[in-house]
């Protein structure tokens, strides 16, 4: 019993300090009272439940905290904007003469990217339109993520070097988390998306030319882009897992991830057409507003991440908590 008590006490360190000071003993008492009735498996589930609650408080992502409110407020417009940007990508960036590498070729550029974007748009629309608890959609999203993440990269011979890959992989995974009714399925979706990211990271590190940001990412800002995207994807996967499932919390993630990513893809592809030019030169004659939007939105993304970190800092006070330090 003493060992259990010590283990549970250690687990409480996942909570912010002020919360732990106010509730720690009480939670510990409740856990110890219910301990004799629990199996080992149930104890693990209780530990997971506590960890999720504590992390949610620390991240500031509880529904009554600033992070949760920001996610909730900006989500639906974000979803709409991101979907619109994806449409722009498919119908303009990929198909306009001069932007496409070779309109007559039949390869990854002409087939895979439009297909991935189409899947993503379809997923976004379907998720908005269908009832929340739709397993078929979740299954489709997870399957798509698995296929795209594990089957396609080795077959196409090189790693497509742009943000759209992150989007194509992350969005279905996030949508899967959005529509799955069971926590175990959301865990599966999260693990799948993280596994895919790991595979992509490995592939990027081993594909020539090996650059800091991976192939295709160069320039003062560009090299950081994949890492920002990966961090954001991971952050959002975790946040969505802990947040109460709400339709429009997803839009914020899509806004923060998709628009800058897609715009960057547009810019990077332009740079490829003029190998000696920089990314910024490569954007000439294309959609300058997308590039402007990309910079602004990347800044917003970074600001948002910083804001979440500050709001949910480890020793933040918990609003409306009796006994909290104000």
């Amino acid at each position: 019993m003493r060992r259990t008590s010590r283990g549970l006490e250690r687990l409480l360190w996942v909570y912010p300090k002020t919360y732990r000071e106010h509730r720690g003993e009480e939670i510990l008492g409740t856990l110890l009272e219910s301990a004799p009735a629990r199996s080992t498996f149930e104890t693990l589930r209780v530990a997971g439940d506590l960890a999720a609650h504590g992390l949610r408080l620390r991240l500031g992502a509880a529904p009554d905290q600033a992070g949760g409110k920001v996610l909730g407020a900006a989500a639906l417009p974000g979803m709409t904007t991101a979907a619109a940007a994806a449409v722009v990508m498919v119908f303009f960036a990929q198909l306009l003469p001069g932007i496409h590498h070779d309109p007559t070729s039949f390869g990854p550029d002409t087939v895979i990217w439009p297909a991935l974007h189409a899947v993503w748009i379809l997923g976004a629309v379907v998720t908005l339109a269908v009832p929340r608890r739709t397993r078929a959609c979740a299954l489709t999203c997870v399957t798509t993520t698995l296929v795209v993440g594990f089957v396609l990269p080795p077959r196409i011979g090189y790693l497509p070097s742009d943000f759209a890959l992150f989007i194509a992989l992350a969005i279905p995974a996030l949508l899967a988390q959005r529509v799955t009714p069971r926590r175990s399925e959301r865990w599966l979706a999260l693990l799948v998306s993280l596994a895919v990211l790991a595979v992509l990271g490995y592939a990027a590190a081993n594909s020539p030319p090996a650059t800091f940001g991976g192939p295709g990412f160069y320039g003062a800002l560009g090299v950081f882009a994949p890492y920002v995207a990966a961090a954001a994807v991971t952050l959002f996967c975790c946040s969505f897992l802990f947040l109460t499932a709400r339709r429009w919390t997803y839009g914020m993630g899509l806004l923060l991830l998709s628009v800058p990513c897609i715009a960057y893809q547009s810019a990077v592809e332009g740079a490829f057409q003029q190998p000696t030019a920089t990314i910024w030169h490569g954007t000439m004659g294309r959609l300058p507003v997308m590039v402007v939007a990309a910079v602004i939105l990347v800044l917003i993304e970074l600001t948002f991440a910083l804001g979440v970190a500050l709001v949910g800092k480890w020793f933040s006070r918990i609003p409306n908590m009796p006994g909290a330090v104000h």
Partner: protein
Amino acid sequence: MKEIREPTFLVLVALADGRRHGYGIIQDVERLSNGQTTLRAGTLYATLDRLTSEGHIEEAGEEIVDGRLRRYYRLTMRGSAMLESESKQRLAVSKEALRRLSRPSGRRPRLAPGFA
């Protein structure tokens, strides 16, 4: 009115007849739901935090039992009013469901034309 989820509703019901502490609420919720809903500590305290901040419940003393702290909670006037309103609404829906099921055609699905 904001939708009340099942665990929240059960917590409010558990507190309807007097103050209870954390483990008491967990036990009562399990009993009320015939074992269908098991509140774990993280979920319970998230719910209690939210209900407290919304003014639906309040702390009602604490005591030490076997060296463990027990903090008690009770419904506020606001919480009682919300629980009453929600219960009436659920009761009305349940009554309507039973009334419809009591019709002869309500007990089995109708066959599509051509299959009768």
